[in-house]
Structure formats: C-alpha cells, structure tokens
C-alpha cells in the first residue's frame, strides 16, 4: 500500500511515517505544503493521502482544499484529513455525499496508534472514519423526532455508524452481539425514515445525510407504524 503524507511540521510528519512503516505501509512521499501534495499525488499515484488541514503559506485550510481537489480528480484515492481542532462544518463538507474512502480525524487520535491504524485501514478499504467529536456535534444538533426519538443506545449506535465503524466494530465497542447491533440499526433506519440497506457504505452515507438534516422522513414509512 502506497501513502503520501502532507504535514508541515517535520517532527510530526516523521513520527507519522514511522507508525505507518511499522505497520507495513509504504510511504512514497512526505511533503510540507498543499502544492507539493498535489504534485506528489500526480506523480506517485498513491492509494492513500494523509493531509494536515492547515499548511503553509496561510495556515487556514490549504490541506482541506487540496483534499477536495484530489478526491474530485482521483475518485479511487483514499484521503484522511488531520486537524488540530474540530471543525464539524468543514468535516461534513469534505465528506459531502461521498463518505467512502474518506477520513477526518483530530490529530491527537494518532496517539492511540491501534485505533488510528484501524481508521486508516478502514478508509483504505473503501470505508469512512469521522472523528467522534464531529459526529457528536451533528448528532447534538440533529432535530429530535418527537415521540419516535431515538433511545440513548440507538443514538450511540448511530454515532458509531456515522464515524464509519462496521457492525463488528460497533458490537465490539459496545460489548454487545452483532445481532443486537443489527436490530438497533434497522430500528434506527425505520425511525428516521431512511431507506433500509444492507450495504455498509450506503448506510453510513444515509446516516451522515440525515445528520446534516438533508434527508426528511420518508412519508411512506411512519415511524410509529408496526413493521
């Protein structure tokens, strides 16, 4: 697996590089700004890009903008964006309606190396990795759907799903069986009026779209109707 790292702070970039290398990943290029990142991607054609949101020269959102361009230009390219601060709106904009092969994580997450690597692999395998702070923000701001409001457990499951975790990972995180997670998920999708789907990526996308308030309840499926 071939990776390009874009991070202006050399110390951090090297440390990141070492973690990846230890995990058997090939780092084909390390760059310090957005322009170099785009060049490196064009010349090296990596499988994954890890990019800092803020980079020289203005330290605002160069990395994020480069990530948008790259995802547009290379649909097969997996992108993980790292940020010092949680910017939920930016994260959602980047994920857009194409959360597959995308990750947005707080930089501190690298300290939990196992979780971080799991997220990297998940994104590389076509999945999603959204920072829990981002999901929590959108989950907090999401409209509460009256009597059909999700139970606390269901909100938890929805949050983990939106982060990109698989059913197995969710069940491991919550110490419950996979079957239980399954039944929670189908209940959530009915309550939110989302089209049921067995495919993980489409479920994540639906969950994110709902969190952003884009999907309105499906009038054909009343949440309070027995199924």
């Amino acid at each position, binding site marked *: 697996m071939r990776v390009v790292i874009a991070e*202006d702070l050399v*110390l951090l970039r090297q440390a990141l590089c070492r*973690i990846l290398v230890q995990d058997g990943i090939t780092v084909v290029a390390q760059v310090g700004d957005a322009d170099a990142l785009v060049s490196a991607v064009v010349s090296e054609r990596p499988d994954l890009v890890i990019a800092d949101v803020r980079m020289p020269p203005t330290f605002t959102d160069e990395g994020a903008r480069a990530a948008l361009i790259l995802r547009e230009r290379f649909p097969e390219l997996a992108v993980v964006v790292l940020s010092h601060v949680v910017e939920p709106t930016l994260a959602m904009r980047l994920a857009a309606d194409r959360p597959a092969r995308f990750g947005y994580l707080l930089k*501190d997450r690298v300290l939990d*190396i196992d979780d971080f690597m799991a997220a990297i692999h998940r994104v590389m395998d076509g999945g999603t990795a959204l920072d829990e702070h981002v999901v929590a*923000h959108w989950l907090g701001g999401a409209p509460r759907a009256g009597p059909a409001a999700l139970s606390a457990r269901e909100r938890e499951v929805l949050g983990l799903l939106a982060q990109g975790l698989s059913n197995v990972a969710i069940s491991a995180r919550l110490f419950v069986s996979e079957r239980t997670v399954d039944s929670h998920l189908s209940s959530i999708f009915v309550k939110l009026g989302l089209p049921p789907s067995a495919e993980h990526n489409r479920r994540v996308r639906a969950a994110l779209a709902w969190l952003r308030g884009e999907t309105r309840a499906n009038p054909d499926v009343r949440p309070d109707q027995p199924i």
Partner: protein
Amino acid sequence: MKGSVALRSAGAIVVLTTAAAAVSAYFAGFRYGGDAPVFVMTLTAAVLTTAGVGISLTDRSVARWLNLTAAALFAYLATIAAASWYAGVLGHRDLLARSLVGAAGAGYILAIALLQACFLAAVGRSATLLICYAAAFTLASVLLLPDAAFSGLEPVLHAPALESAIWIAALPWMASVLAGPIAAWRALARTRGAGRHRTLMIAVISLVPIGTVLFAALSALLALALDVMSPAIGETGQALAFGVPFVVSAAGLYGARFTGPEAVARTVTVVVGSLIGLVVVALSVVLGTWLGSGALLPIVIGTLGVAGTAAGVRRRVVRQLLLHTDPMRARAAALVHEAGAGGRAAPARTAQVVLADLDPRARLLLRLPQERGWADAEGNHHPEPGPGTSVPDADGRIHAHVRHTGDLDLDGVLAEVGMLIELAVLEAAVRDQEGRVAAERARADHAAAVERRRLERDLHDGVQGRLLALALELRMAQRELGDAAARLVLSDAVDRLSAAIEELRTLASGTAPEILTCEGLGAALIDLSHRMPVPITVTAPAARLPPETEAIAYLVVCEAVTNVLKHAHAGEVQVEVTRTGEYAVVTVADDGGGGADMRAGSGLRGLSERVSTAGGRLVVSDRRPHGTLLEVTLPCAW
C-alpha cells in the same frame, strides 16, 4: 453734544415758561378749562416727551412727524397761554384775541392728526393727505368756531351757516384716529423677520389714543351717571384723554427702536400698564368723589390689583400677539403642543418635524462637541452645516443650524422649538459620545479577535504540533520497550501530554468567543449548549458580570461539559450561574455515572488550578442517586 444739551435745556425752559404763563392765567382768575393746571401739566409733559423722543429717534421719517407733533403741541400750549392772558385776563376783543382764541380752541386737531402721521410713517405709509386735511380743518376751525368760554367773542370769520359744515368736516378727522392702528395691523400681515416685532409694537401703541379717549369718555359717563360730575373731574378727564396718548405713544415709539420679543414685552408693559393705570386713576377720581372719601382707597386697591395681574396678563398678551402676528410661529407652537411630553422625549425628531412642516427640505443640524461636525435628527453626520439659519444658545454660541434654501424666516419658529433644540443638542452630544465609545470598543474587540486568531494559529502550528510529535515518539517508544514498568511510565507520560494538548486547544480556541464579550455569559452558555450533543439547561443572570469573571466562568463550563461528555455518559446537564454579592457561583450538574475525582482526571485538576489562580474555589461532589456536581465560586470584584 454740549450745544445740543444746551438747546434742549433752552427748549425745555421755553416750554415750562409758556406752561407757567398758561397756569398763571388760571390763578389770575380766568378759568376756561384749557388753562386748568392738570391739563396744562399733561400737555407740557406731552410736549417735552414727544420733543425728547423726536430728537433722539434715528428713523428720520418718524422723527420728523414726532417733532412736528411736538411743535403743534407747543403751539397749542402757547396759544392757550396767549389767549388766556390776552383775551381772558386782559379782556381784549380785537382780531388778535379772536385769532388766539380760535387757535387755542382748535390746536389739538392738528396735534392728534400728527400723532397718527407718526404711526403711519413708522409702518411706511404716507401721511401727507391726512395732515393736509387736518391742517385745512384746523384752519377752518380757528377761523370759524366760536369758543363758548370766551363770552361775547366772535369767531374770526362770522359765518354761522358754515358751522354745521365744520362739524361734518370733523367726522373724517375723528375717524383718522383709526388710521394708525389700521395701517399698522395691516402692515403686520406683510412684514417679515425682525421688522415684525417693530410693526407689532407700533400696532399696539397706535391703539393707545383710542383707548385713552374711550376710558376718559367712560369715566365721564360714569361721573354723570353717579351725578358727581364736577369741573375738576371734567378737567382731569380732558387732561388724561388728551395728554396721555402723546406721552405713552412717544415712549412706545422710543421703545420700538429695539427689536425682539423682549422689546415687544416692554412695549406691551408700557401700553397695558398705562391704560390700566388710566382706568385706575379715572375710576378712583370718580368713585372717590362719589364715596366722598377722597381718591386714596380706590387708588391703593386699584394699584395693588394692577400690580398683581399685570405680569401674567402681559405675558399672555405678548404671547398671543406674537403668535397672532406670526402664522408660522403659531403653527410651530401648535405642533410642539401636540407633540407634548412625547415630543420632549425625542426632541431632535420633534423639532425636525416642526421645521419640515414649514419647508419640507429644511433640516435641523445639531453641533457636536469638540468641533466634530454636525448631526441631524437621525444621527447622520454632516461635516458642514451648509446654507441656512444659525441657531444660538442662551450664551449666544451657535449650537444648532437649520439647513434650508431661500428666504425662510425662522425667528418665531425657533422661539417655539428653542427648548427642543437645546435638548436635542444635548442628546446628539450624548449619542455621539456613545457612538465613539462603541466604535472604540469594536475596534478593540476586533484587534483582540485578530490577536487571538494569531495566538491560536501559533499554538496549533507550533507548540501543539511539537507536543503531539513528542507524545507520538513516546507512544512508539512505549510499544517498542520490553520493560513493563517503563511502558507504564511512558503511557502515563503520553496521557499527560495528551491532556496538555487538549488544554492548549481549549485555551487557544475557547478562551473568549465573540458572543461572550459581546452578549455576555448567559448568551454564550446558551450558544454553547446548542452545540453540545446532550441537552443542557442554562440558568444565568441577565446582568453582566465583570469580563474576567465571565471568561473564567465560561471556561469552567466548557471544560466541565467536555468532561461530562467524555466520562459521565450523562443524559442531561444543568448549568447554573448565580451571583451573591461579591461572588459568582457556577454549578454544572449531570445525571451520569458520577465518581469524578480531582486526582484522577488531569482535566479537572487543570481546571481547579485555573480557578484558584483567579481567586476562586472548585468543589466536585457526587449527586444522589447518581451524577456529578461541580461547583465553582469566583470573585466578582477585580
């Protein structure tokens, strides 16, 4: 100047000598009314006043007529003295005696017409026709009218057939007493600006002759009705009716040199005062005679009554006259009255409305302190006042300006809205000050925000990144080490570093958001609660706390809520801020798992240190049945 004084003194001596000659005939035994001391005295006073005023007036046309009046009065006085002695005391009956008696009988005709000429001249009307007629009539009277007081004395021309014609010819002359008032009151309608006050004064003064004649006639009628008519009363009445108008009119014309409402007030005081005084004197004489107790009591009572009512009456009379003569002022007064207390609450707007009523394009500009230009009623700034009328304050300094084009006379209107404008100037100054303070604060806030963003960026891209890199190195070292104890130490170190990084992030991004500085703690906390994934109830006082207290309190709640979200798995959080005297108490209560310990979490420990640095105290306790209560006490006086 000396010569003029000498001339005046000589003139006065001649007049007084002539008067003495007339009175001496009375005391020599010849009494026919014209030489009665009371009449001669008022006539003398009239001569001296009209001549005195005539000399000092700068208005040439009025001065000329007034001097002519004085001359006519003096001629009248002189012929009275001459006739009394020559025809009366000495008993001559020749042509000279007949001429003198004729002149003494008709002398007042021309004098009274000349007084009207003064009024006409004062309002710019020609009096030639009137005077020609009066002169002709006087001459006819001198020649044709006999005087009953001089028994057996024939007129110069003996023509009894013409006598009735003379009486008919007298009617236009009598009506001419109305010439002055009519001309003056008509002139008011077309006079504008400062001239209006003068015209108003002339109009008021011109009523004096009519008033005095009416009062004299009424008192004579009263005397007849009470059957107390006597030569003394007759003489007094005649003296008042004839002499007083000249004295008061001359004094009024002197006062009319000045302009402005004050001069009008003074003139009205003189006129109303003398008319009322006349009523008092006339009634006192008649009633005193009737009561047989002398004139003392009625005079005292009357004078007190006049003194008591004059000021109030005068103010009302002056105001009504001013409003009557100035339709724009009357309109302004009505609008101001209509606006009432509400108008005074918004003085600039009310004054602007009144002015715009006169001229839709007129705009009131209020001078701002320290040469900061001008502000209109809406608070817009104008560097220059532009063309128009300046408005001075009580000390004569220009404190406002009415911008308008063309010839707009605002004197009367400004007198009505002056108080509003004064209030508006104060209001504009205060508003200007507030605006400057707000702009200053906005600039400072903006600078602080820019500085904060710079600091935030430096922290993220510098310190935070280095710490993170270091923590990552340690983490990798921990994984590579075989020694379990060493791994534990490194793990702890990474945790501490991680906590430090998080604290740094809070510090850099969450210290004082815009909403906290602008709208206060309550608004900032409600905003925070909307951004959190669990329901948060916020209770906070509406009043602002000191900025330092608000900043710490906000930080405390941010940290506490973050902790709750991270560790407590709470379903609900309650945040409450109360202020008790010198202290503010912030409580954050959740219904989560509880068991928070200051020693365990570095977040809580860091928070506690921050609070004690600010002079406050942090206490964490478990709630029953479950949950955590964090209570922070912060000082409010810094």
